[in-house]
Structures are given as structure tokens and as C-alpha cells.
């Protein structure tokens, strides 16, 4: 399983060949496809729940693993080759990589919603290869220089920060608003930090695991909340309403927070989230769990809630994310709990899969 590197340049890659079947392969060094492409020597790659999901289940929604793909999509690296029309980066520049390049021609792309493009080439979403290779090819306008004082691990964490930036954009977060974030995993705590950086007056993090709440308190949340478990026999909806009332009371949220960011995908959190949002407020679904849940739709109607979905990122998210990290407003280094060498990639995935409480963000070093 450990590949030998040749004297000649090669492209060692960590490949998902089939469900639960990963291996290292030596692939060809990729070539630039056109004059706008750049080739990146990947430096660091973070692991996301979706990577683990493809590995274990082989599909997310309509994206089905039908042929081997290289894994990974949260990366940073150094530009080693540029196409003739490239102006925004130079060889030697260190960049954060935006892993989804849309078609640029369809209605979504042309109207500023490129995250919805049907023909997006997204790293490690079947059938497209990801970034866990020595080299990765991407259009230059999807790479973002990072300043000298940002290291490559921080560069790799720009991707989840960009996800959090998009979530707050969708929420149309304004200064001095109150925000409740369900979930204190990486996305949840980053949403809390972004909301704070963007002027929220009060950010409350909710989670079922105390250690995660403890971290969230030290990161971006002003307050944290551990919801009580339902007593046996209690209707889950009634329980969700009770938890919502508790939340509002405990943190003096009046009629409720202006904004709720749902970053768990867990049905009880979704229900509580709808019940807690103030009238006319905004609820954003960012977390992914069961595809179909029991949703308090009449509450949503009567309280005139704005309910929106958020997926990936749009124009401006990556530059905003780089700025949030570079300026020190969000210290992403604190999210990294485990580091692995490229050859240990499979162990890294196993660790994320095991879901231990003390494991938060795992990064894999690139091929040296």
C-alpha cells in the first residue's frame, strides 16, 4: 500500500476504488487543459464528512460512485505551472483551492448562482477526482493567494470557512442580530465565528456533546446550550417546542433569535430550530442528515419565516474566508486535532469515521 516515488516526477494519489476500498496509485502528472488552468502541488488537505460518506456508502443523493475517484477537496498548495492567460497567480504562489468549478455557460452560472450549476466539476464528487494527489489541475480564478503569514494548514481550512461564509450570506446576516447555531462541529463553530465577525450581537451554539460546547465557548459562541433529553413517551414535537422555549428564556432571546443556522441535519434540531426562530426571522438549513423529516410547517407559515437552503459557496466567499483567517478574526488552526502524512491517508479516514469526541478537524499532508 505504500507506493515508491520514482526519480521521474509522478503523481501519487489516494484513490477510492469502490465502497470501503481505498488504495494508493501512481497516476500521470496531470496536464493543463487550457490557457486558464494552473497546476497546484497540493500541500495540505482537510477531511470532510462527505469524503467519509462516499468512502463508506458510495453515494450522496444522485452522486454515485461508479468508477474510482481520488478523494479530498479541502486543500491548499503551491502553484507550479500556469497557463498562458493566467493573470491572478504566479508560479511559486501559495494558494487556497476552491474545489468546484462550474460550467460558466448555464443560467445558474450567468445569474450569479454558480453553486447550483449542474455541470460543476467538483473535486471528489463522482465522477471527478479530488485533491489528494501530488498535483491538482484547476482554473486559475478558483485559486486564491494566501498571505505569507498564513500557513498551508490554514489555507486548507479556508474551504470550510467559505462554507460558513455562504451560510451567513444566505441568512442575510446583519449587524447586531441574534443568532442560534445548531451543531458545534467544524461547520457549526465556523458559522458561530463568522457570525461574530460579521457583527452579530449574540451567538449561541447548541450541541448534545459537552466537550463540543466547551470548544465552541472558547471559539466564536457567546453562549452554549446543551438541550435536555426527551423523557420517554414524550412526543418529539412537544419536546422540541419545550426546548425552543427553554432556549429563548435562558438567553433572553425575547420572541426568538433573528437567525437560526441549522448545521446538524438532525431532525430534533431542525424542529427546535423552526420553533425558536422569531416571527419574520430567517432559518437556514446547512446540515445534512435524513433526507425527509417531520417539519413544523404550520409554525413556519404562521410566523412568516424565511426558510432557505445553503450549499457550498458563491462568488466572494473564498476571498472573504481568506480575509477572515488572514486578519486573525478566525483562528482555524485551533480546529485541527490530528495530522497525518500522505502515506497515512487511510488511517486519517479511519479516525474521522470512528467519530471520537476528541477528534475535530483532521488534515493530511501532501506528497513531498
Amino acid at each position, binding site marked *: 500500500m505504500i507506493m515508491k516515488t520514482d526519480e521521474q516526477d509522478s503523481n501519487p494519489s489516494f484513490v477510492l476504488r469502490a465502497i470501503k476500498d481505498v488504495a494508493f496509485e501512481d497516476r500521470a502528472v496531470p496536464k493543463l487543459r487550457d490557457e486558464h488552468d494552473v497546476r497546484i502541488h497540493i500541500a495540505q488537505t482537510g477531511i470532510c464528512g462527505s469524503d467519509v460518506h462516499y468512502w463508506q456508502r458510495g453515494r450522496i443523493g444522485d452522486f454515485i460512485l461508479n468508477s474510482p475517484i481520488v478523494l479530498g477537496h479541502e486543500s491548499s498548495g503551491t502553484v507550479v505551472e500556469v497557463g498562458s492567460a493566467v493573470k491572478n497567480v504566479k508560479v511559486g504562489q501559495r494558494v487556497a483551492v476552491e474545489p468546484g468549478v462550474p460550467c460558466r*455557460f448555464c*443560467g445558474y452560472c*450567468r445569474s*450569479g448562482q454558480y453553486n447550483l450549476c449542474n455541470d460543476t466539476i467538483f473535486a471528489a464528487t463522482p465522477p471527478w477526482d479530488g485533491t489528494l494527489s501530488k498535483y491538482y489541475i484547476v*482554473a486559475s480564478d478558483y485559486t486564491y493567494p494566501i498571505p505569507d503569514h498564513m500557513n498551508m494548514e490554514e489555507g486548507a481550512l479556508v474551504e470550510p470557512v467559505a462554507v460558513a461564509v455562504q451560510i451567513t450570506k444566505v441568512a442575510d446576516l446583519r449587524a447586531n442580530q441574534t443568532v442560534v447555531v445548531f451543531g458545534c462541529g467544524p461547520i457549526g463553530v465556523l458559522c458561530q465565528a463568522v457570525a461574530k465577525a460579521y457583527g452579530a450581537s449574540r451567538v449561541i451554539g447548541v450541541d448534545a456533546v459537552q466537550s463540543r460546547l466547551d470548544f465552541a465557548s472558547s471559539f466564536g459562541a457567546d453562549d452554549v446550550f446543551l438541550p435536555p433529553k426527551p423523557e420517554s413517551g414524550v412526543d418529539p414535537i412537544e419536546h422540541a417546542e419545550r426546548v425552543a422555549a427553554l432556549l429563548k428564556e435562558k438567553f433572553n432571546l425575547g420572541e426568538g433569535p433573528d437567525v437560526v443556522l441549522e448545521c446538524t441535519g438532525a431532525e430534533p434540531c431542525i424542529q427546535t430550530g423552526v420553533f425558536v426562530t422569531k416571527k419574520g426571522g430567517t432559518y437556514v438549513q446547512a446540515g445534512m442528515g435524513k433526507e425527509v423529516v417531520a417539519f413544523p410547517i404550520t409554525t413556519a407559515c404562521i410566523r412568516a419565516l424565511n426558510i432557505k437552503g445553503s450549499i457550498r459557496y458563491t462568488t466572494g466567499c473564498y476571498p472573504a474566508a481568506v480575509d477572515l483567517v488572514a486578519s486573525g478574526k478566525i483562528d482555524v488552526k485551533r480546529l485541527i486535532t490530528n495530522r497525518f502524512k500522505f502515506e497515512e491517508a487511510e488511517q486519517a479516514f479511519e479516525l474521522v469515521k470512528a467519530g471520537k469526541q476528541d477528534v475535530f478537524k483532521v488534515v493530511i499532508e501532501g506528497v513531498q
Partner: protein
Amino acid sequence: MAEKNPSFVLEKAGSVYYEDRPVPELKSPYDVLINVKFTGICGSDVHYWVDGAIGSFVVKQPMVLGHESSGIVHSVGSSVTSLKPGDRVAMEPGVPCRRCVRCKEGKYNLCAHMAFAATPPYDGTLAKYYSLPEDFCYKLPEHLSLEEGALVEPLSVGVHIVKQAAVRPGDSVIVFGAGPVGLLCCAVAKAFGASKIVTVDINEERMAFAQKYAATHAFRSQRESAADSGARLIRDCDLGLGADVIIDASGAEICIQTAIHALRVGGTYVQGGMGKNEITFPIMAMCTKELNVKGSFRYSSGDYQLAVDLLASGRISVKELITGKVSFKEAEKAFTDVKAGKGIKMLIEGVED
């Protein structure tokens, strides 16, 4: 292909000539080659013809004129999926870079690298053939003629202006200027559900036409201050506390000033017309009335398709705006007529086969 590409070229201000140029090559597998059939003329075309420049856009080398065109697809690149030879299309003449921030946020009309037909240094559409990417060609349904297809461009300008103005059903709208763009703004405002549409112009004929076409009221200007004119507009047209939306399609200073006074508090003003670079503007009224003041430039995502759909559904008609047609060989005559203010829209036919 030995076939040539007869083109109508502006050499410099005041001097035009015909030239056989090479047939354009498809630069990308997503491109199509179109046999241009009809081209309308716009004030900007006339401006380049007369002055050789608009602002910082200067004609430094000979340039093919024309940008308001329709045509028939001649050949398609290998990756084209939605068009085939023989398809009749309205042509969107400005292709953006697709990579910059403006493009990716959905405002491709503001792309700094826009390649726009007949804006220097890019050649226009008054040639036998013109190439465009697939997504900048819009199929015309059977019941729309190619002549109407050539009007899709100015109609799209009107669509974009009315969208900038965010006209909502029930709104009262005033449009200053009853030239082609002003008329089309009235028509789009009507299609968007405006309950009252006032046309304003100094030309009686144009105003009468506008009232038959899409406006509900006409307003005759007099020699008076802009504030008085604005107040009179509100009274004469029963605009209550003032108009919800005013669009300027004239560029005339007095119209712009009058508009600010004719709007209700919180109303919206959109500058579509182009006149003097700098004017005297009632900025205190704009401030204290908390007006939304916006510019509008060309068209962007969704505008062309909406224009075609509005025509296809019959909610807007453009046939009555076509007041003259000349053959390709008589193109210069069309420019002369438009400069003299004759008619509404003159079309130049494509090169005969």
C-alpha cells in the same frame, strides 16, 4: 470555405465602406456561426458614425458596425447541444469573460473584458456572418419573424431598465423619452403590471404613438422649472403623492431634474438615457425623499430570454416599431435616416445569398 463575408465598415468618423472580410472561424466548440438576416440601428451606432467615438471608446481602426441583430444558424461547434443549422435566433451581441467577479456574481453586463459588437475594438454584426457562443443565441419560436428578432436587443435594454427599477404590479411609472427604448420601457412596465404608465416627450407624434402603444397617459412639457413640471405631472396624471417609479430614456437634463420632483418619497429612479456627461442634479430632493437612484447598462442574465418570452406570448408587440427596411447595399441610407430622426426603428437586411 472560399465564401467571403461582405461587411459594412466604419473607417473613421463620417466614412463608411463595404469590404469582403474572411468568414469568422469558430474559436470554441461552444460557438456557432450565424448568417445575419436583420440588423436594427441604435443611437450609439449613429454616434460612432458621426463622431468616431463615444467617451473613451474610440474607433482607432476600421470596425464593422451594427449590434441589434437576428439571423439563421449556419454551422455549430462540436460541443453545441441546443442549436442546429437552420435555427432562427435573436443574437445577444456582448460576450463577457465568464471568469471575473462581476461575471460570477451574475452581472456580466459590467464585465471589464466585455467583447461587445461594434464597440471598439470589436467588429459588429453588419456582415454576412457573425459568430457567437451558443448561450448568447436565443431561438425564436415559429410565429416570431426574424424582423421581430432584431428588436429583441432594444427590448432587452428595456427589460433590464424595468428590472433595475423593480416595477411591481400596481406601480405607477413615468418614462421620459418616447424613442425606441422609452417605448419599450413602457411596454415592459405594462407587462410587469404597472397600473399607470406616463409617457413624456417634446415630440407630439412620438407621444401619440406611445399612448396607442403602451402608455396610459401622455404629458406635454412646457417652459417651467423642473420642480413646477414635476408638481404638474403629479397633478395632471393623478399620481397621488408622486410616481412609484421613473425611468429616464432621454438623457435630457431637464427630464432628469423633473423626474426627481415627480417621484413619491421612497420612489425609484433609473437612468437609462444617455446625454450630457454631467448635469445639475436635485440632490437634496433625492436625499430628503429617500429615493433609490440607479443606473442601467445594457442587459444581463435572463433579460434576453425574458424579452423573447414576452414577444412570444404576445404580451409585447414590436412589429409596429419597425418603420423602415433597407437592403444591405443601402445601409448608409438607414444611418442617414436614423440620424435625421425619421421613423422609429429602421432595419437593414442581411447580405443577399
